């Protein structure tokens, strides 16, 4: 099956799958990004820079295409940069970039626009493969995706309640895998993992919710958990919110797929703030403390922080804001929580 890269959670896996592709989230780890550095300013996040570097390298030759959603401004720019490097003849042959113009502000116009672009994406994929995406294939892909979501929700249950059994460090690795794997295979493995986790003793320690920059590695969780806390949720698309609700299998599949990615996928561009905050508001009341992580490169969530801080203060929910992963204040915060 030809492999296509995607850069975020908001590219409809089911559609790519039904078109006969093997979708993979691009999440390369790169300490140095010499190819990207030639074109991309330092203001880009390390994640986007690493993706760009990867796409310009020979490693990307295995990808038939890369689908970039308009889920952040940086991704739109990544798309334009990639095209420009190709136009200038400065790259051997990076995968074909495809922009998925999904918008995230909630309005009747943006909704209609996004639905139409989802149909466009389907046509583009059909052109790439030379064959139509059949309704049956969509139904199968939706069923596969939903089964994997169910498996993830099973894992997430082990992070809930007063006695969680799954650490954040493990959860991020277990959940994150679904972005890279065949989802049928993923479902089986996740279910097996769940059976094992259910037999464990609960993990002790203050339960933490993380908010802020994307947790696409377990490192920050591990840094928190090293102090005796347990990360039970993170408000981004990698961990707790990766699965969300199922795709409605009873309505028109294209509409159902679009609805899922428009209404139920976290993105930095979700608007209004009230809608964007809803999940956080609910989750924050279920934990012992919140850690907001705003690293140097943050230029978005920092705008939300004072509002979220006020929300937490009003409800007397303990919280801490850190700008460095290895902040000494984390230990003190957790100790405070542990001592009640």
């Amino acid at each position, binding site marked *: 099956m030809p492999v296509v890269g995607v850069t975020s959670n908001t590219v409809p896996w089911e559609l790519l799958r039904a078109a006969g592709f093997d979708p993979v989230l691009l999440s390369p780890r790169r300490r140095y990004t010499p190819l990207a550095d*030639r*074109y*991309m*300013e330092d*203001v*880009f996040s390390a994640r986007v820079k690493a993706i760009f570097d990867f796409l310009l390298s020979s490693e990307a030759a295995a990808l038939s295409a890369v689908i970039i959603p*308009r889920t*952040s*401004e*940086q991704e*739109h*720019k990544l*798309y*334009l*940069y990639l*095209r*420009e490097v190709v*136009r200038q003849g400065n790259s051997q042959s990076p995968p074909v970039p495809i*922009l998925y*113009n999904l*918008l*995230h*502000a909630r*309005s009747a*116009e*943006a909704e*209609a*626009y996004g639905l*139409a*672009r989802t149909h*466009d994406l389907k046509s583009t994929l059909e052109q790439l493969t030379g064959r139509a995406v059949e309704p049956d294939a969509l139904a199968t892909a939706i069923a596969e995706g939903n089964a994997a979501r169910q498996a993830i929700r099973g894992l997430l249950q082990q992070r809930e309640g007063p006695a969680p059994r799954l650490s954040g460090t493990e959860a991020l690795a277990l959940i994150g895998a679904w972005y890279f794997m065949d989802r049928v295979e993923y479902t089986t493995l996740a279910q097996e993992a769940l059976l094992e986790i259910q037999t464990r003793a609960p993990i002790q320690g203050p339960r933490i919710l993380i908010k802020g920059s994307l947790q696409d590695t377990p490192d920050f969780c591990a840094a928190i958990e090293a102090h005796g806390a347990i990360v039970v949720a993170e408000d981004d698309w990698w961990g707790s919110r990766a699965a969300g609700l199922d795709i409605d299998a009873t309505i028109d599949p294209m509409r159902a797929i679009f609805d899922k990615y428009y209404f139920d996928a976290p993105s*930095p*561009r979700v*608007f*209004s*703030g009230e809608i964007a905050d809803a999940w956080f508001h609910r989750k924050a009341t279920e934990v012992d403390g919140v850690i907001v992580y*705003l690293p*140097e*490169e*943050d*230029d*978005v969530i*920092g*705008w*939300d*922080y*004072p*509002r979220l*801080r006020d929300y937490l203060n009003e409800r007397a929910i303990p919280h801490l*804001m850190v*700008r460095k992963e290895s902040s000494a204040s984390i230990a003190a915060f957790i100790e405070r929580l542990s001592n009640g």
Partner: protein
Amino acid sequence: MAEKQLECTVRAAAYQKAWFAELREDVFEKQKPYAIVQADMPLELFHAMDVPVVSNQWWAAMVSAKRLAPYYLDNLNALGYHDGLCRYCSLSLASTLASTLAGNPTQAAPWGGLPKPALLSARLTCDCIQRVFEIWAAKLGAPFVPLDAPGASELPPRWWELSRHRWSELFESHRLDFMVAQFHSLIGTLERITGSTFNFERLRTLMEGVNQQELYFEEVREMICKAPKAPVRMHEQVSNVMAAQWLRGSDWAIAHARAFRDEVKKRVDAGVAACPSERVRLMWVGAGLWHDTDFYTAFEERYGAVFVWSMYLAFGPDGYIRYGLDDPLRALASRTVSFNEQLHNPPWANEWIVEQAKAHRIDAALVLEPLGTRPSATGNLFIERALEAAGVPVLPIAADMVDARGWNGLEMRQKVGHFLERI
């Protein structure tokens, strides 16, 4: 501040001041509505409804020129907004947030400060702007009307050759349709606020007026390209152009553009140069350095180096003129959808700037690398490389447009001096 060489510049500043005083009076005494909007909004829709607009960037530049930015931004940071966040678009918000502080210097805010608007509106370009405006709207107790911004995916070469007559080919039709649909909702809001009905004829007339205004600017641009020495300094170009752009299409704006053209023409005819010792023609790429506009004349005496180009004048004719106004809303949509691509993103920004550099006989370019305005620093490396490939030496200037904190004017002038000595 450098002396103003053109009478027009003095008149533009006086007019803006009087305009703002009248706006305040209308809002406070007659409860008339006005709007705070992002610079890249379709101001014409507001003008057609007689709703005056204050642009966020204009206000930020004013605050910055009054040297109030450090106080406001320190306060913004003290409220918990960290110092890595965008400053250009948030300085005006910061001024509003500071107005609730005890002992605040809002009395010293430019021209008495911003009154409460009837609405705020912005295009959702970067991911931060929706946040800045939402916070601001909540603080001011006024609604925020966003226009979402899909990304461009077809970018034909030499956009400026298509933008006037063939704009419907230049921009993807789904993006234009979407923008028009959003305009209809915005018009609905404006109708509710004003209690009057939108008049499409009026919009068409305004758009024709904008065309006329931009043609005057084009004549000025031509004169700057062709005259042996630049007849008008960059900073004065900006003052005259922007005073008219914020009110574009109005009788005053058209008349001012004409007067500006006439005055520049008189200077060219008489062989008057902004800097008689001009030897090096400089280009300023990026938004203005509003907290230190003297920077733009600092290299004339010693190096004969004159800033002759910035996007503010040059973008007018290429970015704004639209012919074929049967559907003025769609034409306006075409003017609105891609400001960002045209000014900040490859391939359009780099291609256009190189073209401009050639036409203006540019010897060297200074490219602003905005420090505190991170997301708008993009596209710069493509621009720098393209300029260099075209034989134009480039000096990147790391600075914030509005925030003087961390700006060392002396050091930067020395740095530019060394650069000029080398080229």
